[in-house]
């Protein structure tokens, strides 16, 4: 039996995501034409052989619960183990009002669940990370290196909202844990960790007893000299979806074939819930280039450098450039959109023109009619 249990955190509210996170947690944001951010974490775990995954939720989780369902899409609908949804059942502070202040508080909130974990090791991941990690390799490295905790880092100091950055010695051991940096430096933490179940439970209990809630401050930084905390550097594509700008830039990167080849590599498929849509249709008048297009779309106008989710419609004479259109969006005749992220069920009426900019994409909230 595979020894890796998954815990995915999907409780944080990211204000920088503006309208996109008004109705959902960051982890359930649609990404890449047919996925939700959390599909990546789930697929990474399943591809590494995990059969049991818990998802820690807090607030605005209707969208997440709808999406995950029984976990069937990831083969996590199982008789033993499988997907466990973990809405808070043991608030530490202010019953039902305050979000968790940190991962340790979140884990203390589901403390009894931790006792049910059958596996020896736990992989903790944030639900808003878009990556295709060889998690089986990370796990193997964790065991070989004798680390107490493995921290997975990107091979860059890319600025991400509320990011954690690490410095390491030549040996791979973490020497510094940094956050709230004005100018990021070191290795960007991907918020993916491997730790033994026993140690995790000890740490949760210890923090809880001291009223500590932060994993990075109260565990990683506080114990970097006493615990063997090592890093695993991932050189490939890894996007944290934490602001509108980051969402937009990272989405557009998918138009690059090399990045797609890496993120959607056939050895480790990213699984998503299938929408029952028919084929996408492009009419005689339609023109669609350099774009990622999901099933069930109807394109009669012009689409360039864009990402279309299932069921998006671009009518004749409409022009959509550098946009992300979510599920079931309709762009009516003659409308023109540039640098727009349109959430689900948006309708842009005939002849309307909306333009953002590459450095300021405009978000249209779910269901709006322009």
């Amino acid at each position, binding site marked *: 039996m595979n020894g890796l249990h998954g815990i995915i955190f999907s409780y944080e509210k990211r204000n920088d995501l503006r309208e996109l996170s008004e109705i959902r947690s960051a982890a359930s944001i649609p990404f890449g*034409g047919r996925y939700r951010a959390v599909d990546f974490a789930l697929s990474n775990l399943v591809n590494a052989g995990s059969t049991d995954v818990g998802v820690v939720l807090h607030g605005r989780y209707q969208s997440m619960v709808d999406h995950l369902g029984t976990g069937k899409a990831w083969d996590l609908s199982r008789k033993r183990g499988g997907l466990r949804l973990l809405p808070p059942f043991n608030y530490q502070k202010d019953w039902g009002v305050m979000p968790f202040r940190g991962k340790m508080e979140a884990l203390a909130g589901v403390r009894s669940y931790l006792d049910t974990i059958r596996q020896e090791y736990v992989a903790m991941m944030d639900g808003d990370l878009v990556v295709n990690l060889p998690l089986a390799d990370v796990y193997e490295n964790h065991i070989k290196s004798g680390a107490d905790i493995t921290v997975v880092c990107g091979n860059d100091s890319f600025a991400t909202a509320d990011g954690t950055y690490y410095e390491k010695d030549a040996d791979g051991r973490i020497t510094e844990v940094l956050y709230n940096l004005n100018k990021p430096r070191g290795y960007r933490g991907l918020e993916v960790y491997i730790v033994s179940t026993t140690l995790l439970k000890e740490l949760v209990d210890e923090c809880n007893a001291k009223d500590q809630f932060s994993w990075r401050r109260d565990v990683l930084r506080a114990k970097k000299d006493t615990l063997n905390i090592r890093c695993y550097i991932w050189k490939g594509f890894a996007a944290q979806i934490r602001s509108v700008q980051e969402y937009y830039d990272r989405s557009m990167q998918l138009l690059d074939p090399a990045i797609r080849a890496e993120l959607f590599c056939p050895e480790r498929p990213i699984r998503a819930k299938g929408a029952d849509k028919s084929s996408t249709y492009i009419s005689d008048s339609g023109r669609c280039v350099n774009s990622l297009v999901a099933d069930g779309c109807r394109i009669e106008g012009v689409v360039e450098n864009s990402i279309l989710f299932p069921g998006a419609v671009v009518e004749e004479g409409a022009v959509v450039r550098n946009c992300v259109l979510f599920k079931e969006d309709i762009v009516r005749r003659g409308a023109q959109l540039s640098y727009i992220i349109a959430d689900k069920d948006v309708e842009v009426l005939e002849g309307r023109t909306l333009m953002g900019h590459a450095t300021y994409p405009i978000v249209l909230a779910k269901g709006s009619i322009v």
Partner: protein
Amino acid sequence: MKKECIAMLLAGGQGSRLYVLTGEMAKPAVPFGGKYRIIDFPLSNCINSGIDTVGVLTQYRPLELNSYIGSGQPWDLDGSTGGVHILPPYQGSKGGTWYKGTANAIYQNIGFIDLYDPDYVVILSGDHIYKMDYSKMVARHKAAGAACTISVMEVPWSEASRFGIMAVDGNDMITEFAEKPKEPKSNLASMGIYVFSWKALRRYLTEDEADPNSENDFGKNVIPAMLNNGERMAAYRFEGYWKDVGTLESLWDANMDMLSPASGLDLLDETWPIYARSVNAPPAFLGGDSQVHHSAFNRGSILEGTVENSVLAPNVVVSKGARVSYSVLMPGTVVKPGAVVEYAILGESCSIGENCHVGGTPEETAPDSWGLTVLAPGCSLAEGKEVRPGVMLDRNGEEVSR
């Protein structure tokens, strides 16, 4: 578990008129319309009509079909009572035989049907593309107090002699049935979809089985026997899109119909969804120089060349400088740079080498005889190869005659 109505889906035929496309799979498993297989239509019609118990009778090359149907979950046919059941021929204590005909296939599964003790049994074929509410047909059957109801549609008089033709009275009760009549008395053609009262059908199947001269076929034996005995036989008029895709030409036609909702086949209509077991792949990518017009495509595809008037299944690649026109490409087919594919049906996972030319237009072929070009699943063409219009190749690239 008592059910009012269950469906039996005849999916055992080889579909020999699809030639190389059904070389290794039964006809109902043949990909259709980009993301579907033919069997998705009757299965989806069943669940949309409220029929949650379906027996699928298989015989010829069932592996692909079995794995496609699986637990039945994509069609919500995996309930704890009922669901979809694959029914191959089996051995009993007195031996067993292959399914000898459509009626014999049902006869051999009387035990299965009795498990559900149904009042009505709907008999379906696995080679038709249509959207139909069987519950309306069952309602017609009940209202008419019929032993058998046959769904019919009007066909052009000129084509009537190709079908099983029903003559009806003023109440649309069937008075006469003629298989491919030279001089048709009506233009109401049987669609091969029947509702039977189970008690009556059970009796006729048993009698038919006892008759050594019978071919054990619904159209040839059971229906005529019921008519001769004066059973109440109702016609149910169906209006809408319906096509038998048993031939290469009709399969191609139906795919092309899908591109034009005016044909009546509107798959975007979500009030009557057609479900399919979907493959897992990222969205399709259309390259900077791609030209895709009046075509349908699916996830996992990478289109960088020209695609016109074509239907592309998931995971199809059309490379730079390649052109695909008036063709049907099944899952996983790759068209390499500079290749041209015209008026062709390419089976699953074909590979068309650089600068190949597959098929041709009727205009350019004239005065030579023209036909669709068809490649068997897995056929791989080396660079620069030409395959003439009307030619059919098996998976090793050898020419096969029709």
